[in-house]
């Protein structure tokens, strides 16, 4: 499994092509991008704060759990932090498996877990000011 946290952008296809995964018959990628509007407000940028030590540990736990549950052959997670302008890439999740069903399910599992477990916080920057994006709570914590 590869987990990377970085301020700089990434090129999704090049990142995925860089890994030669034996036995893989399917590769599914998800790319999250900064939206340009929220609740009728124009979004200019997103400030992403995180808890570096925990983020790395949590992304590794999320990836390992999905790998075991969906029989994934390889998992790649790249998540950016800092100030990102609208339409910029935020996150890449790419998974490899023998067949497509596991790859689709595994990728979705990881992306869903990022939303509720990974310690990132987003502040939307718009012409009206800056607003924290409401977050989510891990389900097992209520």
């Amino acid at each position, binding site marked *: 499994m590869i987990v990377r946290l970085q301020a700089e952008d990434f090129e999704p296809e090049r990142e995925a092509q860089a890994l030669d995964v034996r036995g893989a018959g399917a590769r599914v990628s998800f790319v*999250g991008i900064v939206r340009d509007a929220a609740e009728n407000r124009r979004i200019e940028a997103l400030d992403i*704060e*995180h*808890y570096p*030590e*925990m*983020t790395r*540990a*949590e992304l590794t736990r999320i990836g390992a759990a999905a790998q075991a549950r969906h029989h994934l052959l390889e998992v790649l997670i790249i*998540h950016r932090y800092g100030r990102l302008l609208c339409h910029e890439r*935020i*996150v890449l999740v790419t998974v490899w498996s023998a067949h497509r069903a596991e790859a689709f399910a595994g990728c979705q599992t990881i*992306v869903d877990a*990022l*939303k*509720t*477990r*990974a*310690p*990132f*916080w*987003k502040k939307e920057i718009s012409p009206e000011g800056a607003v*924290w*994006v*409401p*977050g*989510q*709570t*891990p389900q*097992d*914590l209520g």
Partner: protein
Amino acid sequence: MITVRCFAQIREILGCDTRELLPAHTPQCAADLLKVIAGARTADLPKPLLVAINCEHASLTSPVKDGDEVAFFPPVSGG
């Protein structure tokens, strides 16, 4: 020592990102540390408040001990 870290709105409201606290002589939970660093401003903090101990999700009632790193933060929004 116990290291306490705050993130996002919690950091902004308390004006504090990291503090070192001496462990108490009696058993402590995460909520006890929050009372120390937030004091009267505890009521100003957004709810729910999440807790991590040594980089794993925990709760306000989780016990803490000397050497732990305890973090307080609002609900998360990765991805």
